[in-house]
């Protein structure tokens, strides 16, 4: 095991997949000469050349559309949205084209493509650059939505995504790039569509993913000092959603808190809570709590922004409320 950052894990996955498969190439804004705005593709342009590391105009529909077309010809493009907030300008190509072409043409089309998109708040970038619209994209059948919370999962899931024959939105969190974690040596893939218990416990189930996994871990550490053992289930993939580990955990703890960075209304927490109630209502010993972002466009001011984002203390309080 090596201890590396999330950025290094994602970068390694891309590099290794490009080395093993000529069909894999990268396109996006500033992915080449610049080296990626988050430096994920630093050094790629010099090593793989401009054919496989393609700088594009600032034109997200062209980026995603070109990735779709290239995928239809048998290539395996990895398109980068500089941030997920810019994916809205390519919304039609992601949800109306990539997610539907296979089904709409009766299975004739295959789209082996990945859209990498960093998202999330907490960097004082203001309302248009700080969003967590994961649930919006996860709403659409035909698209797969992956969002890892650890370097190990990021590397394994990105490799699995690149090797998948389906269109995948791979959502990274911009404030996780520096986070370190243990990553296995050598080639490995992590299966898409599998949730995972990241921390065992017996008193309360916390369901979360991405950056909020980190927040939930910190909350669990604090709660452990009070003798409260939290079990953390990391969704890792939002579509297709794997509820098995969630339900298994809930049937054991009978209490759940769902922690997401996005807005509460119509969000991931709403979906998970509904499914728990639908499938395990009799096991509930307390109403399920949701921890989510305040329902405001994120403000620039640091204090206000942090007030809006879910904090460790919010998770701690929610856990105590369901006990």
């Amino acid at each position: 095991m090596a201890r590396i950052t999330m950025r290094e894990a994602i970068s390694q996955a891309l590099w290794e997949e490009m080395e093993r498969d000529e069909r894999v190439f990268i396109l996006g804004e500033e992915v080449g000469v610049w080296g990626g705005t988050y430096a994920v593709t630093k050094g790629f342009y010099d090593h793989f050349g401009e054919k496989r590391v393609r700088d594009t105009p600032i034109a997200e529909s062209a980026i995603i559309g070109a990735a779709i077309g290239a995928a239809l010809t048998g290539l395996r493009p990895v398109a980068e949205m500089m941030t997920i907030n810019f994916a809205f300008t390519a919304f039609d190509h992601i949800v109306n084209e990539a997610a539907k072409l296979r089904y709409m043409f009766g299975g004739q089309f295959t789209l082996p493509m990945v859209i990498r998109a960093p998202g999330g708040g907490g960097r004082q970038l203001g309302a248009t650059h700080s969003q967590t619209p994961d649930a919006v994209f996860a709403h659409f059948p035909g698209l797969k939505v992956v969002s890892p919370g650890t370097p190990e999962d990021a590397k394994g899931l990105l490799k699995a995504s690149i090797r998948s024959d389906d269109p995948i939105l791979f959502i990274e969190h911009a404030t996780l790039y520096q986070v370190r974690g243990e990553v296995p040596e050598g080639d490995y893939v992590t299966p898409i569509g599998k949730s995972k218990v990241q921390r065992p416990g017996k008193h309360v189930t916390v369901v979360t993913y991405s950056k909020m996994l980190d927040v939930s871990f910190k909350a669990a550490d604090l709660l452990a000092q009070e003798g409260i053992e939290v079990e953390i289930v990391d969704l890792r993939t939002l579509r297709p959603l794997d509820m098995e580990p969630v339900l298994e955990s809930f049937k054991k703890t009978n209490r759940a808190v769902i922690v997401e960075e996005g807005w509460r209304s119509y969000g991931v927490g709403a979906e998970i809570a509904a499914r728990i109630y639908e499938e395990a209502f009799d096991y509930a010993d307390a109403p399920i709590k949701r921890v989510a972002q305040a329902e405001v466009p994120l403000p620039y001011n640091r204090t206000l922004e942090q007030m809006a984002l879910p904090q460790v203390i919010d998770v701690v309080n929610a856990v105590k409320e369901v006990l």
Partner: protein
Amino acid sequence: MEKSKYLEMYRQMVMIRRLEEEAAQLYQQGKIGGFLHLYIGQEAVSTGLIAARKPQDRVITAYRDHGVAINVGIPARQVMAELLGKATGMSKGKGGSMHMADVTKNFWGGHAVVGAHLPIAAGLALGDQYQGNDGVTLCMFGDGATNIGFFHEAVNLSKVWNLPVIWVCENNQYGMGTAVERASAVSEIRRKADGYNIPNEKVNGMDVMEVHQAAERVFEWVRSGNGPYFMEIITYRYRGHSMGDPERYRQQEEVRCWEKEDPIGIFRDYLMFKQSVAEAELAELERSVAAELKEAIEFAESSPEPPPQALFEHIYAD
């Protein structure tokens, strides 16, 4: 050009028109659902273009796609079956009128969001360029599509990357019911290509030979590595934008004026008077089209509905 090729082009044009006339009837009988956009009047455009392509050349178009389906060689029975939503259609009844495709014939749809297929066309061309294939992508769209952002993003990218793509604007004078000059700041649409430094020309789309000769030249030019090319093909649809269009935006005199330029009539005269094809031979072709269509409708009507399990098939590959 060989006589057999002329006659095949004529057969396709007649097939498109008769098939769509039948489709209009089936629509009025409630056997075809959703939207139905007829290509009647524009047959010379896709026929002339696609007759100039090689098998490795990809074709992609918008929702007015029945003509292209016939031109790339999809049998009329399959087109009819897809219109009727049957399991025997190319898209297994899941696509319908606006979503015809057949990847074995290098036909990549059939796209219903105006302009959205242009970036995809750029990607198809990128795929060929990347893999060193000598295929050219032929991308057709209406005049209305040149006002949406997708058009500008895709056309710009094609020049920046020198992609082997032919952009074809089928200017049929109206984007739905809005005349070109009411929606586009530039009514001579090919001039938009000047903004991206892409060579361009205007072609008379009512004359299939003119379209075909231009297309042969343009395919070779693009295939030779010269990058994208832009054709504005002037044409006219005789029917409404889709079935049920009240056509309040144009006078019937205008339609009748264009009908004098009927592409099938022009080509028929050309074949008889310039190529000495006997009228009896053309009449025989027309009869064979009618017979094939009759069989196609019977096939489509007697074909099975998609099975219930088809509802959950083909969402994902893995």
